[in-house]
């Protein structure tokens, strides 16, 4: 256990000091304030767009835009942008070290392969979680600062869901947690490709290709894909929006949780089996 904890500390130190990991955090730290300031200062257009869609059924009084609603807008980065940042780091933890040759120096020491791999996996998953929470909490904090609180309005697939200000914070945290779970699936997928590859670019490209193709299949209204759609993890990328609905559709949430957990378990299980038998030739 002591050796594993040391290895975990080593992997955290190595990974979080790498430029690509820092770039991910910097991107969030730069982009989110810019977006939030943009929404706060020029959000009328977005608000008008909201109001136009609602005006036929609702009488809209006051402003729809507030810090909570703006956070929801920012969370839409979870579809493609955040996955890209997650893949950059998850793809590098094994494959990047294989490419630079540092994997052999690590694996020729006392800690076994399983121990090293598990530490690398934990770090990759933690990076995905950290990125989502940094993005969400930064957006939430800046949103409160710039636009104040208020009721949370969420456009769902079949209507509008309104949450009172009191409940909004807790639900947003839940959205971040479920969003992080989806990003853990992305990290696991990239990690799996990273175990197969011997350079850090291949797993990133492979994972992003899978995500884009699966998102297309998930989103396209083609009946021949109906059987496949529920099994694609990208069909459950919207898990974070489900937990913002009122009431929460528990059956859908359960299905999405199971799909994500299933992917995480299977992909990491495969990574484990492959890595423990792999010849390190780079």
């Amino acid at each position, binding site marked *: 256990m002591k050796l594993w904890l040391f290895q975990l500390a080593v992997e955290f130190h*190595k990974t979080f000091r790498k*430029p690509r990991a820092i770039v991910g955090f910097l991107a969030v730290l730069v982009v989110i304030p810019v977006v939030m300031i943009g929404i706060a200062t020029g959000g009328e257009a977005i608000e008008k767009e909201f109001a136009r869609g609602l005006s036929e059924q609702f009488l809209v009084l006051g402003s729809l835009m507030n810090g909570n609603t703006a956070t929801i807008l920012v969370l839409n980065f979870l579809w493609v942008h955040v996955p890209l940042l997650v893949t950059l780091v998850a793809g590098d933890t094994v494959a990047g070290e294989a490419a*630079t040759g*540092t994997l*052999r120096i690590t694996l*020729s020491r006392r800690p076994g392969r399983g121990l090293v791999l598990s530490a690398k996996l934990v770090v990759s998953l933690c990076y995905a979680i950290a990125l989502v929470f940094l993005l969400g909490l930064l957006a939430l904090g800046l949103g409160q600062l710039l636009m104040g609180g208020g009721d949370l309005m969420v456009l769902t697939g079949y209507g509008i869901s309104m949450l009172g200000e009191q409940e909004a914070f807790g639900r947003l945290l839940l959205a971040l947690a479920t969003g992080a779970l989806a990003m853990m699936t992305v990290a696991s997928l990239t990690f799996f490709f990273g175990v197969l590859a011997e350079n850090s670019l291949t797993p990133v490209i492979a994972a992003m290709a899978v995500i884009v193709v699966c998102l297309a299949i998930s989103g396209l209204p083609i009946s021949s894909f109906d059987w496949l759609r529920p099994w694609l993890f990208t069909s459950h990328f919207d898990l974070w929006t489900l937990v913002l609905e009122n009431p929460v559709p528990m059956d859908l949430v359960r299905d999405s949780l199971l799909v994500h957990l299933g992917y995480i378990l299977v992909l990491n299980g495969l990574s484990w089996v492959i890595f423990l038998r792999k010849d390190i030739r780079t």
Partner: protein
Amino acid sequence: MSGTPILEVDSLRKRYGRRQVLDGIRFELHAGEILGFLGANGAGKSTTIRILLSLVFPDSGSFRILDQHFPGGKRSVYGRVGALVEGAELFEHLSAWENLRMLGGMQGVRDPGRLEEVLRWVGLYDRRKDKVGGFSQGMRQRLGLAQAILHQPELLILDEPTTGLDPAGMREMREGIRSLAKESGMAVLFSSHILREVELLADRVQIINLGHMVAEGRLEDLFEHLPYRLVEVRSARAGEIADWLRARPGLEVLNRQEERLLLKVHRGQAPELAELPQLLFREGFPLAEFRAADSLEDLFLDRTESGEMGR
């Protein structure tokens, strides 16, 4: 050499796809001994070393490090092994000190005093805070050696340790390795394709070619007391010659690569070396080349210069 060997390798075989990379490698290494593992690029030296470090899994065969038999031995024995594999690839975005702290920690070394001692020994203490990415190849090699000996291993495995070093650096590295073996009793296995390097450093050599051990022993014995002659034959009908020779006593075909054959002619059992070409001509085999290859230098240079033969 008496006593139980620190390292014992038995019949290692490894195939990558269709290519037999190792074919029955066996040797042993004792405490305080420096064994030079000599062979051309691609001869199988690095694969052997990777197997010994459990980076690559053998198809068959086994090895023992200290009290652990592999495959299946306890991983903890690698805490008593130091290694530098194919160049010192370290974490470039971290400093020399951070690299050693992490890599030493994995081997159970947490004492900053030991880190300082080793960094001073390899002459990098003043550069300890610099990122490795800015180091020259020579500095990386020295830091690579530092991480390998940090935990005072009983077995030190070095793959081409002088790569990228200037002549002065190569001498320093040699002296360092020699002092580790003689003063600490460390068993050292080092691979090289540089004959001079091996001559200057090794107590004993193993020559590997195309995955086979082609010579083994102390250098002076290899030069003066070979029980056989090595002969290289080049002929358009090399395959037929190989079949013909295999049926003769005292003759072994060590390798065949296209038109080239490497033969082992055992003294006293086979025809005299001078008679062999005549015998082959009499059987109607055309010979493009027939030459002795039994000096270590000749053998080694031939392997490194002959393209396909060296692979």
